[in-house]
């Protein structure tokens, strides 16, 4: 059983984006938030309200179902694997992911897939996100 990324304490988020910087840095060697496979959203006029959108590691992923070329396929343990050579850059996957967790790489025109690695968790100063053991039936 693998661990999956979860939002544990949404209300503790301070909006520092440290998690997003960590994901981009580690997986893309990029100093930015824009390559991160999760998103911390803020809202117009609601000061300090954040919504964190990590990949939930679905066992029957909507994103993979939406993909017309099977560039995205279910990953054992939850979530998806991505084969860039098959991607037609149609963005059907990001539209299919209801929580808008699946991010789009505007530079390379491909989805940014979460590896469920837990690096972002290590750089969250406030215990907002965590890796949790999730039974397959609950994914």
């Amino acid at each position, binding site marked *: 059983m693998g661990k999956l990324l979860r939002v544990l304490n949404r*209300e503790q988020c*301070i*909006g*520092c*984006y*440290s998690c997003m*910087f960590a994901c*981009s*840095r580690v997986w893309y*060697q*990029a*100093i*930015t*938030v*824009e*390559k991160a496979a999760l998103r911390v959203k803020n*809202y*117009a*006029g609601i*000061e*300090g309200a954040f919504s964190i959108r990590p990949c939930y590691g679905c066992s029957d992923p909507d994103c993979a179902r939406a993909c017309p070329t099977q560039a995205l396929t279910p990953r054992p343990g939850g979530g998806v694997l991505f084969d860039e050579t098959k991607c037609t850059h149609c963005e059907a996957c990001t539209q299919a992911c209801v929580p808008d967790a699946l991010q*789009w790489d*505007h*530079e390379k025109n491909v989805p940014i897939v979460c590896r469920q690695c837990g690096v972002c968790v290590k*750089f969250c*100063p*406030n215990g907002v996100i965590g890796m949790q053991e999730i039974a397959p039936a609950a994914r």
Partner: protein
Amino acid sequence: MPTFRLLDIDLTTGTTRVSDVSDRFEKYLGGTGVATSLLLETPAGLDPLAPEAPVIFAIGPFSAVFPVVTKTVALFKSPLTGNLGESHAGGRLAMAMYGAGFHVIRLTGRAAFPCYVTVDEDRVEVHRAHSLWGSSALAAERILRDHEPSSFKRSIVRIGPAGERCSPIAAATVDSSRHFGRLGLGGVMGSKNLKALVVSGGRYWPVTEKGKYNAFYQKIYEAVVNSPAMKKYHDLGTAMNVMPLSRINGLPTRNFSQGFFEGAADISGETFAEKHLTQHLACGHCQTGCIHMATLRERFDPEEHQYKTFKISYDHELVYAFGSNLSIQNPEEVLRLLLQVEKEGWDAMSIGVTLAWAVDAFQAGHLTAKETDGLVLNFGDAATYDKMLHRIKAGHNGFYRDLEKGAVFCAKKYGGQECAIAFGGNEAPGYMTGLFAYLGYATGVRHSHLDSAGYSIDQKVLNEPKPDEELVQGLYKESVWRMALNSLVICLFARNIYTKEAVLEGLAALGLTGWDEARLNATARRIHAMKLRYKERCGFRFDDLALPGKLARVISGNGQVTSERFARQVAAYRDLAAKDAGELPAEYR
């Protein structure tokens, strides 16, 4: 090696230009150093509100790249002091400028209509915005965040109505409760018909020195999150100073009449935390989260159970300006006044100190009910301050319109000059710890407590007295070193984490080679000399600096400070600076 670009926006013509300014970053590091070099190239004698007067936003090579390097520097000619206008703000602006691919954005000209500007990487547009003119600084942000979607994280800098009226004490507000507060950037933006600037983009630097970069990042992250270095800022925040300062007679109370506030416990960091703190917020890429948000829930219908709730940030400076210095000890009253200030877009310290001057001037007979149109001004009277703010907002009469021009202007016009607590024309921050706090405000290039932290010298000498001559050298040294920090635009709360050694390690981790301690120090001295050169060109003279008369009478945290002693150390500082004038690049002599 990273490159650095400057975006020029001419609001008169709506044209833009991009240039590579990497050479300036090589010479002056970035941030305040680079922006000062650009400001020095403007013609002498410009009216601060003239279309040709530039507003320069700048970040540095560490911005968005390392933790807690979150500030953006704004440089302009100050309509308040007539010389160097410099203010720093956090939020997401530094991150957004980095993402847009511009380390410097310079705005000049005046739009023919109220406008806002969007910078989304290379797409730069000037938008008509009559409908936004008149909106509060808070509403403008809500509206623009809806109206200007972007796939990237955005930052929104905007002014409130005070800025539209070109008030020289108007602030520009950034994202959630961050401000370019001091010295009147809001008024300068207003003079350009510029309501707001929205910045976004997805550009980034690749990690080139992977081992060095990650090791340095990890070290800084640990220091920020797990060491005591930042504890104060994320725990109670700077409002934790309220009680200790009052205890040592260093908390300005009733327009600097004394340093002990009998109501300190009621407006302390501890009390705010217990009663009103609802959450902490952070600037982009800062794991500290020092922004303390208070919530105030109020019943607004006496007949029915109808409530409203608002959120407002607080910190030491705000609590001083609208708490102790006006003798308000009810935190709810402080928060209510701060909300008005936030919406209207004034600098809280400047408007607060100006109100405090008005009370003194009223009680001394310089102001009468004729000017105040019937209001009786007393310390501690929050309801009257509330009315005053509303009257300033409405332009009630000449006197109220004058109040938003600052304490020095008002004192010159109405009298009570010795009660205008300002240094170099800028209303004083919230420390009356002694000579070095005052010297710091006076000699600092931006007349801010953050120029050289003189207040901390005062607190140290309480236990360990030293001769003034020795201490003034420390003050000078600190103000020079901060030129380097402000060129990298590191949040000064992290100044003990970003030591000289750390700065050098960080530069190397980005592949910026050729920096050593000597070069760093020389660059800092050069930038300091350039700022003084700009100030002198605008008419600033150290010898004109004076201790506000009232401060020579009252007792500070370190006893009485005489005008003579103050003048002697200003002269000593002037001489130290003169020794470094040789650092001034030939083109600016």
